[in-house]
């Protein structure tokens, strides 16, 4: 019976997200170091995007933001604000265009990625003088990887 109650806890979206983030952190530092080349926080955010609504925006922004603050060793709060604003933009998009089709969902994800990369380029630009390198690194590496992962995931949903 206790096993079943433990499984119920795992079914909780927030707890499962925290466990997933922790798992990605541990795995990226040990077995699959190449995972840290992909920004798994942003990938998970894209997967959780549909679950974020006006009731859950604060909780999800806190989890993603705090973990991202810890990961990149920044001041606590900066990335919470970023995820709050990103979710607000997503709401605005959902109101303007009903994102039910796959194409619109991909457009929405691309929009989120574009904002995320712009934010990263700005943040990295503050510590590095080589803007071109930063730009190429983020666009060539992150942007394309996210796109492929998201596209595969959406196709899997359809199938």
């Amino acid at each position, binding site marked *: 019976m206790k096993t079943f109650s433990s499984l119920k806890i795992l079914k909780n979206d927030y707890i499962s997200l925290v466990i997933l983030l922790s798992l990605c952190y541990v795995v990226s530092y040990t077995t699959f170091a190449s995972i840290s*080349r992909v920004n798994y926080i942003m990938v998970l955010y894209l997967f959780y995007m549909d679950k974020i609504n006006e009731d859950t925006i604060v909780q999800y922004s806190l989890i993603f933001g705090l973990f991202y603050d810890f990961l990149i060793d920044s001041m606590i709060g900066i990335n*919470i604000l970023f995820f709050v604003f990103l979710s607000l933009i997503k709401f605005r998009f959902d109101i303007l265009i009903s994102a039910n089709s796959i194409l619109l969902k991909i457009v929405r994800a691309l929009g989120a990625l574009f904002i995320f990369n712009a934010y990263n380029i700005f943040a990295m630009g503050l510590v590095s003088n*080589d803007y071109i390198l930063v730009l190429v690194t983020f666009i060539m590496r992150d942007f394309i990887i996210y796109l492929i992962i998201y596209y595969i995931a959406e196709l899997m949903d359809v199938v």
Partner: protein
Amino acid sequence: MFKWQRIVFVIFFCLLLIILQSRNKELSTPFKGLVGNVLNPLVYFTSNIISFTSSIWDSYVHLIGVQEENEEMKKELDRINLENSLLRERLIVTEHLESFLKFNKVFDFSTVPANVIGIGDGFLKSIIIDRGSIDGVVKNDPVIGFNGLVGKVTDVYLKSSKVELILAASSNVSVINSKTRAFGIVRGDGAGGVWVDFYDRLDNVSIGDNFITSGLGKLFPKGIPIGQVSEIEISNKGLFKKVTIKQFEDFYKLENVFIIKDFKE
């Protein structure tokens, strides 16, 4: 109707938190310490399990050619022993001359050995080691490998620490060209390499020159090797030239490092 009250509260709270942290940088330490103390033991155990599994694999699969390799190693050891005894003699002579000239002793520090339990490449450029505050590690302690400078400790937990590598774009290390004695600042390029910033464009640097720490920042001791010049880029404008370095330390194969303690600034 959208629930704006909670969001506005969170935004204000975050802004307040950021302002407080900008005045007191240590404010975020308890939170990061808490998360680090929970996650890093997991990294440690996973790393140990993987090492154990891979060591079994290595023991049984890589037995082929061990005898031949052993013979080669013995020859190499003899050669190194000879070289070591020659270098010791030279060291004695150098130390004698240094004391005679009242120079500061180079490499006058103690080290704490540590195992690397986590390597995060990608944009993070940091590693996790199995020594923490319980072993006397403090923030900003320099970390070296067998071949040269690795980085500095940025976060200290109870039994582990996070080390920012010199490959990180945010790292700054004052260096000196061992041949021409010109100074510069080594930075990570964010893509696994390092380059020297603020390097005098009139200096006669050439490919193959070695760079070592200058000791000027008082963060790293003087004389730690960094790398060798692999590319020199001179633009038509500006006061400096861009020197790209091939680092001595292979950061993707780091297993053991040394934390430097009590070095003479």
